[in-house]
């Protein structure tokens, strides 16, 4: 068995490695176990889901050959209690990605503030339950998306921190799936009060949202192949979220809401597009089609600028139509952030440079900060009656 020879080869040839390190390497050689299985094998699913044994975890080995010739996965089998885990809080933070919750929370807060300004009679029970439902839907979507990406092998190409809990065996895949389903059930249950109030409108919006989410998530469909999935996200996180939530809480539609929908939709689209540009090489290798892979790196850099201008134009539209002079603060904030983002993106010689990683963080911060500034301005406007 070559594996047994490994100890000898490794130790004999550890030239320059002093005796204590040799002993540590010897222990390492003895304890590591690997198992390679094909996707059709009977123990493939249990290994991947983490249900094959309670005392062991099977951690898929990163492969640089995903979706090329390989149809097999190699697992490293480790004792579950030997895995060095960070605190539960850190694990949850990496799974939940708190900053991403702003993609849902900021629009909801904006809508509530606008409705208060418009004098809408809000049922606060429905407002709170609908808000919690939206957050539960987002978390459910994140967890189930992570689960399905893990099961399909897509995350073995993804080195981002959010994939660490599954990648390092801190949580099993089956547990993550169950948590995702629990949040989905909560999301549905918490949405019932709103659904009872506006059944027709919300069933329509809800159905479109489900179809839209499926089209956005599934790998091989017309929208993805045409590079339209980012545009779909604009609709989902912009107009559908904005108007859907407004109807859910019994609010009124207004000009301001339209512009708010444009702002949040375009910023969400920008965020995902920047992510896809940073992942352009990995996606191209894995055969995943996105707008970025269709445009190519150079044109994608220009597309980021156009999306940014579109978002800024929407903010200008809101300021001119509804917010008067206090809207200037929103334009200045967004404009400043966009200038930084554009400079970082244009300084990237390729997707491989670390500037693209900075661009990822910046695009999420742009959404977060824009939302916070907008909500502060809306809150101030509520007291000064400027809308």
């Amino acid at each position, binding site marked *: 068995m070559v594996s047994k020879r490994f100890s000898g080869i*490794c130790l004999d040839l550890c030239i320059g490695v002093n005796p204590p390190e040799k002993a540590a390497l010897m222990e390492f050689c003895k304890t590591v176990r*690997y198992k390679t299985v094909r996707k059709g094998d009977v123990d493939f699913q249990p290994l991947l889901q983490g249900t094959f044994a309670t005392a062991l975890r099977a951690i898929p080995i990163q492969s640089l050959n995903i979706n090329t010739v390989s149809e097999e996965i190699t697992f490293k089998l480790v004792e579950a209690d030997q895995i060095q885990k960070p605190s539960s809080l850190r694990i949850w933070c990496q799974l939940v990605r708190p900053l991403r919750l702003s993609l849902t929370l900021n629009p909801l807060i904006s809508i509530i503030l606008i409705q208060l300004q418009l004098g809408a009679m809000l049922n606060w029970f429905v407002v709170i339950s609908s808000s919690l439902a939206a957050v539960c839907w987002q978390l459910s979507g994140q967890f189930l998306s992570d689960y399905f990406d893990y099961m399909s092998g897509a995350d073995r190409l993804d080195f981002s921190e959010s994939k660490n809990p599954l990648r390092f065996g801190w949580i099993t895949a089956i547990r993550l799936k169950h948590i995702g389903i629990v949040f989905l059930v909560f999301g549905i249950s918490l949405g019932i009060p709103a659904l009872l109030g506006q059944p027709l409108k919300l069933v329509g919006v809800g159905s479109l949202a489900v179809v839209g989410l499926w089209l956005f998530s599934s790998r091989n469909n017309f929208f993805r192949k045409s590079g339209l999935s980012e545009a779909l996200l604009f609709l989902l996180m912009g107009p559908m979220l904005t108007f859907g939530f407004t109807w859910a809480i019994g609010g009124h539609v207004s000009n301001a809401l339209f512009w708010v929908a444009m702002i949040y939709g375009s910023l969400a689209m920008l965020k995902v597009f920047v992510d896809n540009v940073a992942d352009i090489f990995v996606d191209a290798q894995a055969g995943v089609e996105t707008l970025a892979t269709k445009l190519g790196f150079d044109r994608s850099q220009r597309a980021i600028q156009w999306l940014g201008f579109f978002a800024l134009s929407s903010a200008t539209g809101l300021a001119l139509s509804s917010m008067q002079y206090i809207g200037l603060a929103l334009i200045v904030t967004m404009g400043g952030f966009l200038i930084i983002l554009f400079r970082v993106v244009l300084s990237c010689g390729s997707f491989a440079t670390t500037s693209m990683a900075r661009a990822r963080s910046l695009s999420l911060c742009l959404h977060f900060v824009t939302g916070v500034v907008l909500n502060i301005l809306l809150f101030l406007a509520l007291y000064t009656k400027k809308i």
Partner: protein
Amino acid sequence: MTTPLKIYTQGDFPSYLPKLNSLYDELFTGGKNLRARLISQVSAHLALSSKDIGLLGQTIEFIHNASLLHDDLVDRAPLRRSKTSAWLKFSPEYAVLAGDYLLARVMVNLSTRGNIQLVQYTSQVISDLLEGEWLQDSLIKDCNVSLQLLDRVHNLKTASLLKWCLRAPFILQDSNDSKELPTMDYKSLHANLEEIGTLLGQLFQRADDLLDFDVRNYENKKLLGDLTSGYFNSFACFLCTEAPEKLRQQFAKCVTIEEVHHLFGRDFFEQKICDFDAENSGLIAVYLHYVDNLSRFLPPEKDGIQAVLGDLPGPLYWRQSP
């Protein structure tokens, strides 16, 4: 791996092209022909004809040396194998054309052999090699490049040739023996060889990157060549993991190994070498697992290949003489 290998003869290139044969004489002498030797050792267990083994060895060395000719010009490197680089000694134009000509000869020779799958795969490997070069060039003067990203670049550059060395003999053998293995096992065999080649390439590149920092530098290679060219190699990235931006910038300006030791502290630097070796020992363990896995696909009379592959981490990573 000590039998001398003849990669080409005078008759392989036209004599009417001035300076071409002199350029190739300079280029091919002094090389270790590592890749050709690997092919020779693997092929010995596959019962390929000596003509086929010679063709494979010549192909990979032509591709490798073509990339060296272009690399040296792109990097403006003055020396190659302790001799003046071709672009300096002859001219940049001749260096480019000589590299292109080697790649063209590869295509001519393989298409004459007539195995379309091999031609296809070789074209893909050359494409990957060039992509890797292109990407690596985009990382010059980037102090924050991650090790994972660098592994992807090396997978295209270094590992693709080693993967070819492992897979090409099997592709030729498969065409000779009209498919010994069922289709699924054939795919799995090549997937396994891909993983082996990837890990071998990673280890080889990382060992080469360590030479830059005078670790196991038995050949007395010039130090900090990558760093002074503005390129953070794998060990440089590892050394700078979690290092602040200011330290990385200062590290990028170091020109001697003493400056590096002074900047990081000698103890920290030595510890990082041990940590890097430990991480790569993990890769070696995975590599040996995949080598072991080959027994699922190879008949007992061919298990000598596992012994050949199992011995490789010694010379390739730990730099022990074979």
